[in-house]
């Protein structure tokens, strides 16, 4: 009970401050997105999103007042999300033997030479050395 009473002792301004912080971060993220910082964009906006969600978790959802076991639950879940995203991304980024993005298929039945030409192209570019670009648009990166 002690914990909830402690929570009840917050003044309403406490929530106002948290809300203002969230709005501020939102505005910051929006402004940064207009600045077009290139590859920094992604990192910064995700960082801000992480900060915002942490604030919501800690103060709106009162995780800060919870026991250790409860606190571990979202941490664990987010760790697994990170694992899934990281290893999927590693696969996509690390593919060496063929174009990273799929090439369009020919219509079935039609023995188009386009696919074959693409195959040769992919083969040449994708495999024997200059694989990193594979002739497809992948400049920039995330």
């Amino acid at each position: 009970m002690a914990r909830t009473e402690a929570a009840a002792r917050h003044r309403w301004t406490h929530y106002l401050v948290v809300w203002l912080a969230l709005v501020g971060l939102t505005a910051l993220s929006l402004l940064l997105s207009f600045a077009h910082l290139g590859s920094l964009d992604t990192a910064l906006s995700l960082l801000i999103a992480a900060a915002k969600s942490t604030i919501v978790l800690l103060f709106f959802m009162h995780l800060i007042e919870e026991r250790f076991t409860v606190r571990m639950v979202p941490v664990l879940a987010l760790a697994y999300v990170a694992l899934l995203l990281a290893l999927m991304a590693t696969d996509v980024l690390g593919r060496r033997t063929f174009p990273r993005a799929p090439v369009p298929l020919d219509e079935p039945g039609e023995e188009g030479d386009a696919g074959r030409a693409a195959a040769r192209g992919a083969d040449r570019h994708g495999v024997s050395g200059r694989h990193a670009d594979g002739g497809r648009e992948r400049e920039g990166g995330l």
Partner: protein
Amino acid sequence: MNELLRRLLFLPQQSSTMAESIDELHYFVIITTMLGALLVTLVGGWFLLRYREGRIQTHPHDYDIGAKPPLWMKVAAVFALFTLFVVWWAIGMRQYLELRIAPQGAFEVEVVAKQWMWKYTYPEGGRSIAALYVPAGRPVKLTLTSRDVIHSFYVPEFRIKQDVVPGRFTTVWFEAKAAGVYEILCTEYCGTGHSVMRGQVIALEPGDFDRWLEGEDLGAPVAGPRYEQPWVVGNTAPAQELDLVRTGERAASTQGCLRCHSVDGTPHIGPTWAGLYGSVVPLEGGGKALVDAAYITESMMDPLVKMHAGFAPLMPSYLGRIRSGETAAIIAFIKSLRNVPPEPVAPTPSNDGGAP
């Protein structure tokens, strides 16, 4: 030793340059695995006997609730196991990279898989179906893609396998140690015909291969191991001169005809050839047709015009893909089967077996 273990473990011949080293790791891993499992079981079994209730009653001092193996033993066991796994991983990873990265200057062939056949395109534009012709003793790199679903290109004797993904180009390479015929299997489940989506790698001596590439009908025997493959009639060296029927048989197998057409009357994807020649068949959309040389030729070049009723329109056109002379030879072969009694080929309207 290698040969003995290979036979004990039922492994196929080691016909590629990579196969032997992979098998060596295989022996190491499997022997350790079996010894490990056996050791644990024997120790466990011995404890079960030694400390059984009946014996404890006569030897009460053997029962000790607090008995534990010393800590160093556990640590050592875990450490040893960890080391073992790391060694496996290190060797396995090195070999895997070797398997994945083709050497420079490999002979390149493009492979297209579709339900349920393999098609190959060679650098000079030559093509073949089902049978992949490669030079022996030279690295061959395949670039694979699929037209429909995921397939997997597997040659057990080469210890290679690579999924063939639609919309992507995957590669695999091998170097056949000697001329011969090696089986290709599809190992990624791809539908009704998955298990008949097979083919052969036909490795030729380099000289023979060049002649084959130039379009010469070798007619020459291909030496190699013989598998009992009921659908491939002549994949090893016949002693006598090849006659037209034999040539047709061989052409039918290398062109992949026998992937869909049986020669003994068994129902399959396409109409059986047994007793086909000279018969009158019902056509899709009504009508009948007499199966003669003209009809067969037309069906090969433009299969969808006069479809045998009850079969799916799966057959590709062989126009421009079949060597001169092969058409005639295949017709001769079909003709030679005219007296083989076909089993009642009831073209089943249901989507089972061969005619989906």
